């Protein structure tokens, strides 16, 4: 059987791509795209530590050896209770949601959508079902914001993509509650290649929360997120990254905004041993705007490397980035953020702020904001970055009110998180993230 065939694979190669496509009974055009992506992956060199893009992380820890593409889960998963304990929160029945797509290893095991939204034409499903039932959407939209050829790990993702999630919101439809794409990885030494395609047609409104989680184990994830926001659309995207310690994590997230579209993203980066994450927003339409929030907590020897781009193409576009990190032990975070204001982007405004709190002498943060401005009449452009320990004067102020130094530090760290965390549009998710933070802080 094909399943036996894939389970015995211990290596990522061209045969693995063909086997996956065969198992999924994909049409030829899909297999063709996968093989093109595979060729692009093979052509691109492995990360070179001398390369500007890769010099900020420890490339020796990047390896595909012994990683096999993950396979269908053997057990029937029909309810959260059949998930392994460590992955349980990825499928949280208590969470107030408009819809959910739950992926375990390579496959989506559960899909739901509230009837009201379905009646309005909203589509929430996995990408294989989408290819069969809504080929016109996939053919036109999939891999338009992200191109396999642009990056080695994205080519790998495009070749081996499985499961995946499509959220399609028709023109003028507003969904109040979030849609969740939960991804759990149960297998060790496995490669996981999820893909979220979010299409928000004109004047629609939607929030999507993506949460990825695994136990502490070696493995590799390369995910793609594409957001296509039509004219006047309002899209909010939350990414909760809780891969286990030991995982290599690569992500490419890109949003294309048409006229007057609004896009807000909140990245919560907590897990993985090495994270290389790319977030780009292209404000093509006049008057489109974006807010990019990030909250990262590294401990042990976790490494986080974020590349962001705020591309201003349309006139009167606005972008604002706020990334906050807390780093303990020997964790390291780098952020390389480009604001590109093109000549057509007159009267645009951009801001970048990076705040990094170091809780140990060995922790480090290296924020690099970069402004590239070629428009002549920019409304405003600003950036700022700070790196340092908890403010001694703030500690003293709290101590002067009787609060012991260790409690004071906790309050300051919590306060530091609050600014971003309070804006996550799900209280249960906020609680979960707080619990992870508490564990990392040894509370």
């Amino acid at each position: 059987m094909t399943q036996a065939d894939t389970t015995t694979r211990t290596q990522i190669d061209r045969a693995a791509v063909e086997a996956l496509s065969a198992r999924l009974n994909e049409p030829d055009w899909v297999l063709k795209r996968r093989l093109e992506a595979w060729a692009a992956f093979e052509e691109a060199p492995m990360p070179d530590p001398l390369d500007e893009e890769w010099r900020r992380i420890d490339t020796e820890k990047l390896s595909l050896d012994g990683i096999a593409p993950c396979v269908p889960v053997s057990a029937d998963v029909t309810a959260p209770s059949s998930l392994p304990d460590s992955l349980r929160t990825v499928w949280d029945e208590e969470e107030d949601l408009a819809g959910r797509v739950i992926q375990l290893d390579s496959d989506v095991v559960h899909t739901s959508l509230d009837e009201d939204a379905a009646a309005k034409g909203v589509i929430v499903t996995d990408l294989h079902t989408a290819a069969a039932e809504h080929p016109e959407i996939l053919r036109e939209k999939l891999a338009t914001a992200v191109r396999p050829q642009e990056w080695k790990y994205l080519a790998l993702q495009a070749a081996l993509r499985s499961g995946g999630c499509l959220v399609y919101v028709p023109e003028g439809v507003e969904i109040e509650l979030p849609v969740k794409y939960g991804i759990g990885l149960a297998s060790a030494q496995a490669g996981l290649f999820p893909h979220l395609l979010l299409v928000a047609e004109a004047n629609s409104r939607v929030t999507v929360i993506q949460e990825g989680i695994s136990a502490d184990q070696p493995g590799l994830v390369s995910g793609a997120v594409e957001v296509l926001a039509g004219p006047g659309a309002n899209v909010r995207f939350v990414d909760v990254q809780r891969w286990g310690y030991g995982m290599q994590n690569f992500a490419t997230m890109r949003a294309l905004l048409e006229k007057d579209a609004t896009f807000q993203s909140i990245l919560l980066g907590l897990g993985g041993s090495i994270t290389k994450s790319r977030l780009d927003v292209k404000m093509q339409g006049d008057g489109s705007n974006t807010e990019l929030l990030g909250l990262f907590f590294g401990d042990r020897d976790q490494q986080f490397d974020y590349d962001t781009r705020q591309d201003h193409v349309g006139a009167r576009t606005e972008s604002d980035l706020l990334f906050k990190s807390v780093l303990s032990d020997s964790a390291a975070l780098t952020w390389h953020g480009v604001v590109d204001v093109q000549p057509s982007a007159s009267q645009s405004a951009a801001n970048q702020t990076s705040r990094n709190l170091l809780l140990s002498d060995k922790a480090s943060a290296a924020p690099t904001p970069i402004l590239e401005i070629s428009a002549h009449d920019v409304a405003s452009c600003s950036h700022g970055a700070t790196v340092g320990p908890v403010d001694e004067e703030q500690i003293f102020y709290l101590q002067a009110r009787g609060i012991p130094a260790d409690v004071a530090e906790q309050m300051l760290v919590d306060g530091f998180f609050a600014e971003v965390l309070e804006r996550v549009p799900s209280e249960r998710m906020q609680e979960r993230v707080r619990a992870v933070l508490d564990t990392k802080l040894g509370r």
Partner: protein
Amino acid sequence: MTEDNDGQPIFVIEDLHVSVEGKPILKGVDLVINRGEVHTLMGPNGSGKSTLANSIMGHPRYEVTKGRVLLKGEDVLSLTPDQRARNGLFLAFQYPMGIPGVVMGNFLRAAMKARHGEDLPVREFRKLLDEKLDLLKMDPSFVRRYVNEGFSGGEKKRAEVLQMALLQPELAVLDETDSGLDIDALRTVAEGINALRGPDLGVLLITHYQRILDYIKPDIVHVLLDGRIVKTGGPELSGELEEKGYDWIIQEFAPANAGVAPATAGSSAGGGD
């Protein structure tokens, strides 16, 4: 001087020497405050007033090289700032720190719990808080804001007095709580402080200006100059300072420093801000 029931002053400073980054600022300060008394410490800019306030509270940047600071007979210099606060010391900051992300209400509860050793039931806390907000003419929405973040000068100073009202210290040091306030805010803050006066509380009111003394009548006035208390007197001393400025004191006690003392000390002492 009057003494409390135990026959012991609430607060004693003995021969206090303090350096900042190796530079001596306080050069032997002596002070005795009894329960129920309000002492005013005046002096020109740079005389060491804020250094004294911060040293009393235990700011890590201020190094005590000699002397003792006794609260209820116990030397507090070996205690951490939070232990001092829990023992009944309070410092109203000249420049209260903004703390983004920490909500005022939660901060006040944590401070109350630390000072009084137990968590007050929410309803009781709320009632007490409303009472004190009312006293200081503060809007209840204040409780939901981040600590001192985006506060006006007047709001910050009111917030300091509010904390003092909730924490009920036994010795309160008010470091230029009057600076940066317009006349209405000054009156409100002064009324708040007056409401907290009582037989158990000692107050050290540090000020550059005389005008807050129109509202708060001190029992004793000290003049700090070049790290030493050079003159101590009754309320009439502050009147004299208003009239004549600091120049005559500088001439009398530190003529060598007369050249470096701010030339405006005389006029600003009487003129407010």
